[in-house]
């Protein structure tokens, strides 16, 4: 062992030995809730995304996008959005996210995701959104969208293409979707948040 090695080892011993008495290395405690700021975001509808917007982000492979599915592991295993990850609501307190990540929260009906949005904003995360209508909105608007007969052709084409990209079955007017897709969608719709 050279003198340099001994010096470095000695420095490590000193730094390691004093660490338990140094306190927490976290300089910034979790940010408090700035109610005025959050209320403004809510009023301006900057707190959520629609299912169509989320589908577009996934299709375009938006950089830093993370879709956090707050439902139970069983519900997640049964059906989940592409590229989403299952994360229990309780795990949000200890999960850290990169500052440039865009976080989209998803629950069955939307209520848990909206609550989680408040938690994450209170923890200092900035780019956080929730899917307003939850999984049901995804099923209704992406997997089984009803295209109004009088909607502009380009809108119908765009939504149809987006739906088919995710394996959905778009239909026009009030017609019911195809039986197979309709059954699976109906089964999932029974769930709350």
């Amino acid at each position, binding site marked *: 062992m050279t003198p340099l090695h001994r010096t470095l080892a000695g420095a490590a011993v000193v730094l*390691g030995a004093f*660490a*338990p008495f140094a306190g927490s*290395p976290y300089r910034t405690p979790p940010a408090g809730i700035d109610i005025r700021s959050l209320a403004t975001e809510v009023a301006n509808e900057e707190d959520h995304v629609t299912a169509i917007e989320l589908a577009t982000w996934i299709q375009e492979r938006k950089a830093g996008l993370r879709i956090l599915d707050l439902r139970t592991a069983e519900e997640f295993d049964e059906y989940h959005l592409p590229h989403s990850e299952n994360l229990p609501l309780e795990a*949000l307190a*200890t*999960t*850290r996210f990169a500052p440039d990540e865009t976080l989209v929260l998803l629950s069955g009906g939307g209520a848990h995701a909206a609550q989680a949005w408040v938690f994450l904003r209170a923890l200092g995360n900035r780019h956080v959104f929730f899917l307003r209508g939850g999984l049901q909105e995804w099923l209704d608007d992406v997997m089984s969208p009803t295209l109004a007969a009088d909607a502009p052709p380009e809108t119908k084409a765009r939504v149809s293409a987006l739906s088919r990209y995710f394996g959905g079955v778009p239909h026009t007017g009030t017609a019911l979707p195809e039986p197979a897709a309709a059954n699976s969608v109906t089964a999932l719709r029974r769930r709350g948040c």
Partner: protein
Amino acid sequence: MSAPLFLSDHAALIAAVVIGIAFGWTLERAGLGSAKKLAGQFYLTDLTVFKVMFSAILTAMLGAFWLGRLGVLDLSRVYVPGTWLAPQLLGGAIFGAGFAIAGLCPGTSCVAAATGRGDGLAAFTGMFTGILVTGLAFAPLQRFYDSTSRGTLTLPEVLHLPYGTVVALLTGIALAGFAGAEWIERRQRAPEPEHARVATLVPEQEPQA
């Protein structure tokens, strides 16, 4: 100004290239582009890899802790990757098997390939073929890929110990590991005992009838 610094996408790419070249150059200078040196790890004849890795872990851990404590580094803004237990265990096993078979890990295989070593080129090609095949077969794998999410875990949270205590414990383990590695290497380098050499030089005489 405090760290970590946030760079634009282009600046981050440039920084990645510069850091990557520096990392590769350092690996090559340390001799880690040679599979023989890395294989020595598994035969306990050359523990350079162990010492390099634990030096890096120890330096980063002590640096992050004390820089955070002194207010230079904002640890709450440092990205900690999430844990997906089953896929990461399987990935670790595949990584370990590849490391043992090739005698090279991803970084050192790039270094070995860049210096024209045949085994490095083979490992490099195999690695990127594996990445390509995994990407092409991702759809059926995705269910497993997304399974057993545990959120973001750190040792202080898992062990329910204060951050500083974990730092002290790991420092002790690392230093004990260095001492153990030095002892093993010294044993491997030690000359044969004198009586053993004499025994090989003077063949045993057969007893006369």
